[in-house]
């Protein structure tokens, strides 16, 4: 059938099953927005900043397991989107970003709102396209969705000149696709899996090290089955929180810079580390030479370049984690003697008992960890939790009782302040039945505060819990620990009135300085049915502990800090 470029985009999004897109119009996408006005297949959410549109699409993708879609215009519209795209790229989130470009004949002339968008997005996307002709648009759209969601997922950017969105061409949208040059390996090598199974049988101090790939591959169930079968304890990266339910005796907690004592000691003393969709990020490994130095490494990842990049793998397995874990289970299910691990497990239980996660809750000031625990008690696994980046993010990661996939949404790799609130809006669109809570800080929330309008205008209710310490808290913590307490430009005491601010945007606002005030405000926020900002005054000098200083060995943790 013959369609113009804009109609092709709309039809392709329909064919891909897209229900919600996020975006911000402008000159170069006017034709497309005219077509969006006419269509009835999917909803368009107008954000108030392009960065937020991409973060919202990202939150939508993480909460739904589907591909998120954002549309932005050329020039500044696109450059504003870059932080969102880079965030998704680092965390391997499937997105399709459509940007307008100046008309094809104007490309390269420094035309109004022209930028080399594909040049800019190349290092922060899985792939990108500049559409040069209407005839290639249908296939590019198909390939974009296919590339975004297959193999190691990631954002794909399509830059479309304005004239092509009006040009007419043939539209035959393929239902299936094969690409000559792109064929991700899905099934792990059976011999390698057999060897890995043997290594697990023979080890006496094995540990599972679960990464974000567990979530991306939808392999929570398979991971839990394998842990149950083998009795091998498990540590989680920031991105893998919820792989095992909080309280599961096999769960040692989060590993890495702010990991638990038991998790970090387990990795340090293990004789076999079984990495599941994890990429050995420096925030996890600490000093590399000391990381898991007694352990053989099994590394399962769909991305071959992740294997051996940081740590040499003794048993590399390239493939989709869900399938590989199923194969591994089949190999192990016949005979696995759990009792063999009892010494190891009791040693780890001892570590967990000596230094459990904890905080001093004496005094009047609200402790941030308490706030996270209270929200956890109230909502548990019924909620989707998003965060911004900073101390609050780590407290949420440490103290929230996670359980399962797609319930924990945070910017792990890039560490993007301003991510949480728009991501929460996207998550709420994906999971309207869930209560969505964004743990944020007084620094982070101001980075995309304009999205209160998006929330109000579209009746999207999420609760922003601002853990307010009048500091750029994590940076202040580093200044305190490592820069002799020189608090350079991290004092954020000059603040807006968050309650009035929320109200000005048509949202719910409340302030809490005492525990009972927080509980009251939290319940009122839920009852309001609106997006909310809860400004919670927390203990100003609270630190995130334990902490492994940058470049330190995982087993050398700061467990307690007194000035």
């Amino acid at each position, binding site marked *: 059938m013959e369609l113009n470029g804009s109609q092709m985009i709309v039809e392709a999004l329909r064919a891909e099953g897209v229900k919600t897109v996020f975006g911000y119009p402008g000159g170069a996408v006017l034709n497309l927005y005219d077509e969006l006005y006419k269509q009835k297949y999917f909803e368009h959410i107008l954000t108030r900043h392009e960065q937020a549109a991409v973060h919202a699409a990202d939150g939508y993708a993480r909460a739904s397991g589907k591909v998120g879609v954002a549309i932005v215009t050329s020039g500044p519209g696109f450059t504003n989107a870059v932080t969102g795209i880079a965030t998704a790229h680092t965390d391997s989130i499937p997105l399709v970003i459509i940007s307008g470009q100046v008309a094809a004949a104007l490309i390269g002339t420094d035309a109004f709102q022209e930028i080399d968008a*594909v*040049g800019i997005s*190349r*290092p922060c996307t*899985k*792939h990108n396209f*500049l559409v*040069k002709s209407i005839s290639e648009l249908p296939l590019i759209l198909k390939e974009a969705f296919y*590339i975004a969601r297959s193999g190691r997922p990631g954002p794909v950017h399509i830059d479309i000149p304005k004239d092509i969105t009006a040009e007419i061409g043939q539209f035959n949208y393929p239902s299936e696709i094969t*690409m*000559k*040059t*792109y064929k991700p390996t899905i099934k792990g090598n059976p011999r390698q899996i057999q060897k890995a199974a043997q290594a697990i049988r023979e080890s006496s101090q094995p540990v599972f090290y679960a990464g974000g790939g567990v979530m991306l591959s939808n392999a929570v169930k398979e991971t839990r089955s394998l842990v149950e079968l083998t009795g091998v304890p498990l540590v989680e990266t920031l991105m893998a929180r919820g792989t095992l339910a909080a309280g599961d005796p096999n769960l040692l907690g989060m590993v890495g810079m702010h990991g638990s004592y038991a998790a970090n000691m387990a990795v340090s003393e293990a004789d076999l580390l079984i990495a599941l969709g994890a990429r050995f990020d420096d925030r996890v490994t600490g000093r590399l030479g000391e990381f898991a130095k007694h352990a053989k490494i099994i590394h399962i990842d769909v*991305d*071959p*370049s992740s294997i*051996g*990049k940081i740590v040499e793998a003794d048993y590399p397995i390239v493939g989709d984690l869900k399938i590989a874990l199923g194969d591994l289970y089949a190999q192990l299910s016949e005979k696995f003697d759990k009792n063999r691990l009892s010494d190891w497990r009791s040693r780890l239980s001892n570590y967990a008992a000596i230094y459990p996660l904890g905080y001093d809750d004496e005094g009047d000031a609200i402790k941030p960890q308490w706030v996270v625990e209270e929200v956890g008690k109230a909502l548990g696994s019924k909620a989707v939790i998003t965060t911004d980046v900073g101390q609050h993010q780590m407290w949420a990661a440490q103290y929230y009782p996670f359980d399962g996939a797609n319930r924990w949404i945070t910017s792990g790799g890039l560490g993007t302040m301003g991510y949480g609130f728009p991501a929460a809006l996207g998550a709420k669109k994906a999971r309207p039945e869930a209560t969505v809570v964004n743990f944020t800080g007084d620094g982070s929330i101001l980075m995309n505060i304009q999205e209160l309008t998006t929330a109000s205008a579209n009746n999207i209710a999420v609760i922003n819990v601002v853990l307010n310490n009048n500091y750029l808290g994590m940076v202040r913590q580093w200044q305190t620990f490592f820069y002799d307490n020189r608090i350079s430009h991290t004092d954020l005491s000059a603040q807006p009135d968050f309650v009035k601010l929320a109200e000005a945007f048509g949202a719910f606002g409340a302030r809490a300085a005492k525990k009972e005030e927080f509980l009251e405000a939290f319940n009122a926020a839920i009852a309001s049915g609106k997006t909310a900002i809860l400004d919670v005054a927390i203990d100003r000098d609270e630190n995130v502990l334990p902490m492994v200083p940058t470049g330190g060995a995982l087993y050398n943790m700061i467990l307690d800090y007194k000035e």
Partner: protein
Amino acid sequence: MQTERRVISVVVLNEHGVLSRISGLFAGRGYNIESLTVAPIPSGEYSHISIVTIGSAKVLEQIVKQLHKLIPVLKVIDHEREKTIEKELALAKFPISESLSDIDALCRAYNGKIANVGEDFIVAMVADEPDRVGNFLKAIKKYNPKEIVRSGVVAMER
């Protein structure tokens, strides 16, 4: 860490921006490019890129893996030195006053010839293994070359 020189061939879809993806990968990750040559493969939709790079074994492994990961890359060949033919081209320009017969004899020794003779300059060309091209360039110094242009390596398995 010990570094080594390696020739890597990459077969890529012949589409716009693909060279930029390859060079951007090297630039963005801090890998070295010693030389890079690219040309379309006749009668096809692909181009052949020959890259000479230097790095540790770990870096070289990553280069190959990261190249594989690029969507338009069909094939990456990590050449073993003894199984590979490498050739490189060099052009050199000399004043016409230099000894034409000496230069011609030198060129012939390096798979080359005098490519052009003009009023003021002669241009010589050689096509040989990279080491030998290097030797040629050393040998011609005494003939006062005014300009030298050296291509990157092209490589093929034996």
